């Protein structure tokens, strides 16, 4: 083909490929794109709805016009009145047929059209000899048909039927002369034009209907989403209101003092229980929202399967045991010792499934089988509970789709957990499925993609490793001076109690500003900083601290753990981040990372050299003793301003040389002097006494 001279290709207009193209395009021209059966029906309805007003209009006009002419013909031309009356009667019959729906509007209109054409030919040609009007009138009628768009088939049929009938009339009546031949020719020509026009118009109508369908589907979907959303909102508000009512109710009755003292404790416990429930609900809702917006990102990290399961059993085993259920984790070896996974999310799934198992099981056991079958890692959570009947089986993965309101009432829970777990499993490249038998038990199976780090090894036993990790978690004890900045008092109390229990010395700050001021004075080993705080938020605080030249390790405490945000924190100057609510293993990991080096490092004193530091302390005390007389003089003269200046100077150096009691008192004196409080004299006297009693020996 390519080697053929160009002239060969251009020589014949209809070369083979052109011919094929022509055939193809004419085929597509004559063939319509058909919809599904249901939509085809809808299409006809759609067309009919559009055609109907035009039919109606044409019929009305045709009828009224004829009526007028019939009345007039009685006056002018009695000869025509019979034909007109016949025509009017047949019109009336057609309208009645159409209105009573005995015959479809298409038929009515078609018969009317044919009738009109025949009548017109008869009337114009045979009665009043005005053949010049025949063609334009019939063309007008057919145009009306085209405008109504009843489809290419009908238009073509009528378009050809009319010239056939007209030809027949002329042939039968023996009127074959050049005039009638012209009329026939023009009518046949019109028929072809109508056919093409009708085909083009049907293509257009079908395209239009397709758009219409898509629009409708989109709207339908929107409506469904809207409905689902409002249903979700409604049930959510209900779910939130229930525990909230309990919290408020119990708190109210405690406040109003109408509760016997021995009941108060259980009331507070109920408040806490409902509060916990509320928190988990809100967390679930946030998760659902994140999943639906596609905002959940998985942070894959190297994790020991055994440690993870240990953590899970720490949480779940006591719950199972409290209900008298056995809790069994069954590792089916060989298993990889390390996997790459978003451990928080996997734990969330497992805790949720096991929690469900415990909730719906009255006696028996909860078993977790763990097996690896490349490329899958499989967790089976098996309970011997009430099971799920097939009727409810479809609902359970939907949000708020607990089997029934009764079950919600009896067992609590939001019904969001399974929905979230399934979506999370999907995100991990797997799925969550279940099999269940009512009254026998259920098995929930999580299959996720098995991803392993290069250093992974297949192992046959879990004991040792889990044991080590276990020990590490339990015996977590650290030493160090830590600052915690959080604006919410409850958070401060909670986190500080955790940190104190781990052996850390703790300072607290309520906002970023306070945190900076404390961090500038004291060398902390670690600062935990909330991100959202009034006055100055965590981001600002850290970047300011860094700009001043302070490199203390700062860990962001935040509920936002999305990659993008974590990146922002790190670039603002945070060293690490820790998700809220604080989870013990992650906390320990952070502490291990930043405090373990501390033990090997020298303390400030050792760093500096004990002997040299002692000399400075000695010099400082000597200086102070030398300035005692001056101080006493100032006290006698009640020189408040000068005393304040002195106190300020003493404070700065006393802190440097670790005379904290002197520094503290000097600071009080400084404050009192600058505020003009009368107690400055007594404070100054105290300071003098303290200095007199201090020597380097007694200090150490």
């Amino acid at each position, binding site marked *: 083909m390519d080697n053929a001279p160009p002239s060969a290709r251009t020589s014949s207009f209809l070369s083979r490929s052109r011919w094929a193209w022509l055939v193809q395009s004419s085929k597509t021209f004559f063939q319509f794109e058909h919809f599904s059966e249901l939509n085809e029906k809808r299409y006809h309805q759609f067309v009919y709805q559009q055609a109907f007003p035009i039919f109606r209009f044409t019929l009305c006009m045709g009828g009224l016009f004829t009526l007028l002419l019939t009345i007039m013909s009685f006056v002018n031309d009695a000869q025509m009145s019979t034909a007109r009356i016949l025509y009017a009667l047949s019109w009336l019959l057609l309208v009645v047929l159409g209105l009573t729906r005995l015959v479809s509007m298409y038929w009515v209109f078609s018969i009317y059209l044919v009738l009109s054409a025949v009548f017109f030919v008869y009337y114009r040609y045979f009665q009043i000899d005005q053949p010049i009007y025949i063609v334009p009138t019939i063309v007008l009628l057919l145009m009306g048909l085209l405008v109504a768009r009843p489809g290419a088939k009908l238009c073509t049929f009528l378009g050809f039927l009319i010239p056939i009938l007209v030809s027949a009339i002329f042939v039968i009546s023996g009127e074959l002369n050049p005039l009638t031949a012209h009329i026939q020719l023009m009518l046949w020509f019109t028929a072809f034009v109508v056919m093409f026009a009708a085909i083009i118009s049907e293509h257009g109508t079908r395209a239009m209907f397709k758009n219409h369908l898509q629009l409708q589907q989109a709207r339908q979907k929107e409506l469904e989403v809207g409905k689902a959303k409002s249903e979700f909102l409604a049930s959510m508000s209900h779910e939130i209101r229930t525990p909230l009512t309990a919290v408020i109710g119990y708190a109210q009755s405690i406040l109003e003092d109408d509760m016997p003292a021995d009941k108060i404790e259980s009331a507070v416990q109920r408040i806490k229980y409902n509060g916990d429930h509320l928190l988990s609900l809100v967390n679930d809702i946030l998760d659902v929202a994140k999943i639906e917006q596609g905002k959940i990102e998985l942070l894959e990290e190297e994790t020991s399967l055994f440690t993870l399961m240990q953590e899970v059993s720490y949480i779940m085993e006591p719950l199972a045991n409290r209900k008298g259920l056995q809790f069994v984790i069954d590792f089916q070896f060989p298993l990889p010792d390390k996997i790459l996974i978003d451990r928080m999310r996997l734990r969330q799934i497992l805790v949720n499934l096991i929690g469900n198992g415990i909730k719906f099981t009255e006696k028996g056991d909860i078993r977790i089988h763990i097996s690896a079958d490349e490329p899958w890692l499989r967790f089976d959570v098996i309970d011997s509970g009430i099971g799920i009947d097939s009727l409810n089986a479809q609902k359970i993965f939907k949000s708020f789709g607990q089997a029934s309101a009764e079950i919600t009432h009896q067992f609590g829970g939001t019904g969001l957990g399974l929905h979230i777990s399934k979506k999370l499993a999907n995100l991990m490249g797997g799925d969550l499925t279940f099999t269940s038998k009512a009254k026998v038990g259920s098995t929930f199976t999580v299959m996720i993609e098995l991803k392993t780090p290069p250093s992974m090894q297949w192992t046959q036993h879990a004991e040792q490793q889990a044991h080590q990790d276990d020990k590490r978690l339990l015996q977590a004890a650290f030493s160090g001076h830590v600052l915690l900045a959080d604006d919410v008092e409850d958070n401060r109390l909670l986190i500080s109690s955790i940190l104190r229990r781990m052996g850390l010395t703790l300072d607290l700050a309520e906002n970023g500003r306070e945190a900076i001021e404390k961090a500038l004075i004291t060398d902390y080993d670690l600062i935990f900083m909330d991100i959202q705080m009034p006055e100055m938020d965590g981001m600002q605080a850290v970047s*300011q601290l860094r700009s001043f030249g302070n490199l203390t390790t700062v860990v962001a405490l935040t509920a936002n753990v999305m990659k993008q945000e974590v990146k922002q924190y790190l670039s603002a100057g945070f060293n690490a981040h820790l998700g809220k609510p604080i989870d013990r293993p992650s906390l320990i990991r952070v502490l291990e990372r930043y405090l373990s080096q501390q033990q090997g490092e020298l303390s400030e004193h050792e760093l500096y050299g004990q002997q040299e530091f002692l000399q400075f302390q000695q010099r400082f005390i000597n200086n102070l003793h030398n300035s005692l007389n001056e101080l006493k003089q100032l006290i006698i003269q009640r020189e408040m301003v000068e005393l304040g200046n002195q106190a300020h100077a003493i404070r*700065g150096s006393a802190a440097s040389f670790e005379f904290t009691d002197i520094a503290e008192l000097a600071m009080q004196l400084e404050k009192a002097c600058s505020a003009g409080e009368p107690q400055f004299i007594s404070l100054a006297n105290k300071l003098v006494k303290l200095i007199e009693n201090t020597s380097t020996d007694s200090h150490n």
Partner: protein
Amino acid sequence: VETKKEVSIVSKETLKQQKKDSQLGLEDVLIIDDDPLLRDFLASLLRKFSIQSITHAGSTNRACELMERQHFQLVFLDIQLKNENGLENLPKMIKVSPDSDFVVVSALSSIENAQMAMQRGARGFIAKPFTIKKLEGLLNTLNIATRG
């Protein structure tokens, strides 16, 4: 054999040069503080970072005189000086020695002080009491080589 020797000499020299570069300006530190005890203490801490030559000044006027004569890489400026406020005189001093890194020192750790110091052209802020760790962070931030 000779070429080999040359190479080794060159590499030694570049090493020395690198070391010199990294310790650039270590001997040029000025401390402006009116309390001789704290001045000495800061100096002794700085010596731990192998900063050897340290000059003292009791007032900003004295400091300006010194800076006109000698270039200092790093200047510690106390806010509360006798009869004057170090912060107020900071812009004047930066004019005298624009290449120096000024670090403002204060016993008050208020953010306003620190922010104002940075606004007026300081490169760092450090609150008393002085500690090795604070100085280490500061020197690291200012990209000045520390001990080790």
